[in-house]
C-alpha cells in the first residue's frame, strides 16, 4: 500500500491543524487503547494507567513526537523511523496486532477533536499513513 500525493497532503494538512495538541491526543489515544483493548496493557505493567496519569501523558507525547517526525519525513518513513524500528524489533517487541489497535484509537481521537477535518478522504489517508508507520515499525521483527 502506497501513500499517494493526495494522501500525503491530507496527512500534512490534518497534522498541521493539530499543532501543539499532538501530545494531548497521543495520550488520549493511548488511554482509549488501554480501555477498549485491555490486552495492550500487558506492555505497561510498570505504568500507572489511571486516567490523567503523568506516565501516560509523557508516553503520549513521545508517540505524538514520533508521528510528527514521520509526517515531516513522509517521503522516507523507513529512514526517518529506523531507530524506532530497531527499538520495537529488538527491545520492545510489541506484537504487530497492537499497532492496529493504537492506529484505530488515533483515528477515533482525531475524529472526536477535529470533526471538520475528518472527512472520508482524510480518514482514508490517515488510516493508510498509520498503517505505513506500523509497517515500518514492525519491518525488522524477523
Amino acid at each position, binding site marked *: 500500500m502506497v501513500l499517494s500525493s493526495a494522501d500525503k497532503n491530507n496527512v500534512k494538512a490534518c497534522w498541521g491543524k493539530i499543532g501543539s495538541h499532538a501530545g494531548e491526543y497521543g495520550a*488520549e489515544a493511548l488511554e482509549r487503547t488501554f*480501555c*477498549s483493548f485491555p490486552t495492550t496493557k500487558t506492555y505497561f505493567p510498570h505504568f500507572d494507567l489511571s486516567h490523567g496519569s503523568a506516565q501516560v501523558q509523557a508516553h503520549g507525547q513521545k508517540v505524538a513526537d514520533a508521528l510528527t517526525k514521520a509526517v515531516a519525513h513522509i517521503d522516507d518513513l523507513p529512514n526517518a523511523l529506523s531507530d524506532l524500528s530497531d527499538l520495537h524489533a529488538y527491545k520492545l517487541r510489541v506484537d504487530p496486532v497492537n499497532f492496529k489497535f493504537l492506529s*484505530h484509537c488515533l*483515528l477515533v481521537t482525531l475524529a*472526536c477533536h477535529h470533526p471538520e477535518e475528518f472527512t472520508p*478522504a482524510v*480518514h*482514508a489517508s490517515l*488510516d493508510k499513513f498509520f498503517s505505513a508507520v506500523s509497517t515500518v515499525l514492525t519491518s525488522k521483527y524477523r
Partner: protein
Amino acid sequence: MSFLSAEEKGLVNGLWSKVNVDEVGGEALGRLLVVYPWTQRFFQSFGDLSSADAIMSNAKVKAHGKKVLNSFSDGLKNIDDLKGAFAKLSELHCDKLHVDPENFRLLGNVLVCVLAHHFGHEFNPQVQAAFQKVVAGVASALAHRYH
C-alpha cells in the same frame, strides 16, 4: 454472565438513542468503501464508486447502509444473545453473499469512527470501549454460522 455490564449497557443505549440510524448507516458504509476500497467488491452493481464524493452521495450506498445499520440496531435489543439474533443473517452472509467476516470487523471499526465523529467528547474512552465490545460481538455473531 452478561455480555455487557449494566453500566456498559447504559452507555451504549444512552448514546444509541441519539443516533440517526439511517444517516449513520449510510455514512458508515460509505466510509468503509472509501477507506477500504477492496470492500467495493461486494457492490459492483451500485453504480458510481469512483471517488470519495461519488461514494458518499451514492443513493444505493445510503440505502444499503440504512438497511445494515437498522439490522445492527435490532441486534442491540438482544445484546445478551447476539448469536441467536444474527443466526439467520450469518447463514445468509456465508451461503448467499459470500462475505469474508473480516469485513464485519472493518465495518464495526468504521462505525466507531463515525460515532466518534458525530458525538465528539461525549464518545469518551468508556463509551468507546463499550461499543468496541458490541461491534466485536456483532461481528462474531455474524461469523458464527460460517462453514
